[in-house]
């Protein structure tokens, strides 16, 4: 069996089980110790590693049970940041948008222990998961650096330190997410320059997840982003980004979103398989990684499992088709 094609994965975050949500609320109100919370975060991480193995995903994630938000988590651990007040993200959801108040630096590793813990639970590769410097900048208030480029490059330095520590700890895949990369398309050069700092010493496979926004506005410039793999939301956009690859061939590995993360409705295996086939028109099976569109933290545990199962089942269908085409 050739399992080296169409390796399945996920973008990074999973829904938090109810006991962990409750524990996080109690901890926020000072009614649960940090040690007790960490114990429950480890328990949930263990559960998610088991679940991913059972579902049959190939490249695993730790599920980010210890994070609330992909920028605030790092901002809390970096010097130079302070917590900002509440800002609405959509509907009735609010978050503490962090403030870059001084020169940023990393007092100690931020994700390495979680990576080591998750990797110790499985033989399958677990991805190291970081937020990219441009997104860290764009999703923070910048009070400290004179320009956005200055801030992005300073953040790149701390992300680089973390990425190299993950590699030293054994990470074979390091994902540096840049969902904000197209926030200001004219700044794509800054995002590329910053990512080059992060990945320059990495031998691990590097991945960057991009979602929402106008991907067309940064294509094909984004092909210069110094990572091996781009990880793109596709279902939410009716796969229209693939049309861009007709004019300018896609040159990287592609992690392709084949189930939407924003709907409760479950895609059929046939629909998801059709998504993989669309991707195969542009990227070979060795370089195509089926997965959900985006992080699944807004979905329930049950919905998350169901969506990931569809990814794996759809991949099996298409692998079978490919095998049938190639005589053994």
């Amino acid at each position: 069996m050739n399992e080296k094609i169409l390796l399945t994965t996920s973008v990074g975050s999973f829904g938090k089980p109810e006991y962990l949500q409750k524990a996080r609320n109690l901890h926020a109100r000072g009614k649960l110790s940090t040690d007790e919370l960490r114990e429950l975060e480890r328990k949930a991480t263990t559960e998610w590693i088991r679940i991913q193995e059972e579902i049959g995903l190939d490249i695993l994630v730790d599920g980010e049970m210890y994070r609330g938000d992909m920028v605030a988590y790092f901002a809390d651990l970096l010097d130079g940041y302070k917590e900002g007040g509440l800002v609405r993200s959509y509907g009735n959801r609010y978050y503490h948008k962090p403030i870059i108040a001084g020169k940023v630096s990393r007092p100690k590793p931020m994700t390495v222990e979680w990576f080591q813990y998750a990797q110790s639970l499985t033989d399958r590769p677990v991805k190291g998961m970081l937020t990219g410097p441009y997104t860290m900048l764009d999703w923070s208030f910048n009070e400290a650096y004179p320009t956005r480029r200055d801030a992005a490059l300073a953040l790149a330095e701390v992300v680089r330190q973390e990425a190299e520590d993950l590699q030293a700890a054994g990470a074979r895949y390091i994902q540096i997410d840049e969902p904000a990369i197209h926030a200001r398309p004219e700044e794509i050069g800054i995002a590329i320059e910053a990512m080059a700092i992060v990945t320059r010493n990495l031998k691990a496979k590097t991945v960057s997840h991009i979602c929402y926004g106008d991907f067309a506005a940064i294509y094909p410039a984004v092909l210069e982003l110094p990572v091996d793999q781009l990880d793109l939301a596709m279902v939410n956009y009716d796969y229209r980004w693939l049309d861009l690859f007709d004019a300018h061939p896609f040159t990287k590995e592609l992690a392709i979103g084949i189930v939407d993360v924003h709907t409760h409705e479950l895609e059929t295996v046939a629909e998801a398989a059709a998504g993989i086939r669309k991707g195969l028109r542009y990227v070979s099976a060795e370089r195509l990684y089926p997965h959900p569109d985006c992080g699944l933290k807004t979905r329930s545990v049950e919905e998350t499992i169901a969506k990931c199962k569809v990814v794996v089942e759809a991949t099996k269908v298409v692998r079978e088709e490919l095998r049938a085409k190639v005589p053994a």
Partner: protein
Amino acid sequence: MKTTVVGAFPKISDDPGGQELRRALHRSDRGEIDAAALDAVFEAVTRGAIEEIEGAGIDVVNDGEIRWDDLFAPLARAWTGVSRGATTTTPLDRFYDSNTYFRQPVIEGAIRTNGQTLVRDYRFARSIAKRALKAAICGPLTFATHARDRHYPTLEERTLAVADAIAEEIRGLGAAGATLVDVEDPAVVALPQHIELAREAYGRLAAAGVPIALQTSFFPADRVLSALASFPVAQVGLDVRSRETTALGRLDAFRGKTVVLGIVDARNTRLESVSEVARLVEEALKLVPADRLWVAPTTGLEYLPHDVALKKLAVLVEGARAATGAGAPVRVAP
């Protein structure tokens, strides 16, 4: 010269007592309170927003758009032919580079409205406001370029159909007593290639016979500035603070129009000094007479935490006073 606000005001604050709306919406979602109880909270929070904006010393206020989930929501909920993405997929997308998300309106048929969508809220705000009050609505190009369209064959047809519906709402607001309507339309500066389509759309809006202010934001207006100067609108709003722009030196293009200048950055917590604000006002006054210059935050203050939003309004008012009150060079434009 007048001070004003543009767009949405923070709906909640970090104070323990400042989160009624957030709680009420959660309780409403869980079916614990009825529509009337939720409505009462919306009214109380709207009243609070108007009072805070007026308390900061702003001359021309709006209602803070407290009921709006996003710029499109009130229209997408009310208009015939448009839904708010409640169908198979619920399209959620990021609003420009704001890290704020909106539900994409889905156009499923010919757009129709009775023009009364915003009237009730305007009347309520009218009953609260002690200062001059303006109404607000989403702009046609911004609506048309953020919607999913299953009905109109082209962007042109979509934009003009949306413009006709917006014009109907503006007529309704005018009949309810509104004397100025902000049309919030960042797409006009985001998509300079569609400036002539935008001009045609604003012609439809102008036909409603109510003075309108075309409020741009998020992007520099440099590429469309001369075109905007001949749009059929009473006011044009420009951000001259948050990004590099040549607009500040070209304001003399707006002969006969009022310029609404965004001079405190509504998307960064870094607080401007009074002298920074005053300097921008003084620069503008070299090219625009004081009776045609209004100053404002660069966009809606909802992108900031509530306490910072209030500080931004305070420095806006102080900076404006410093520039005009203390012998600043006030000249009539050539």
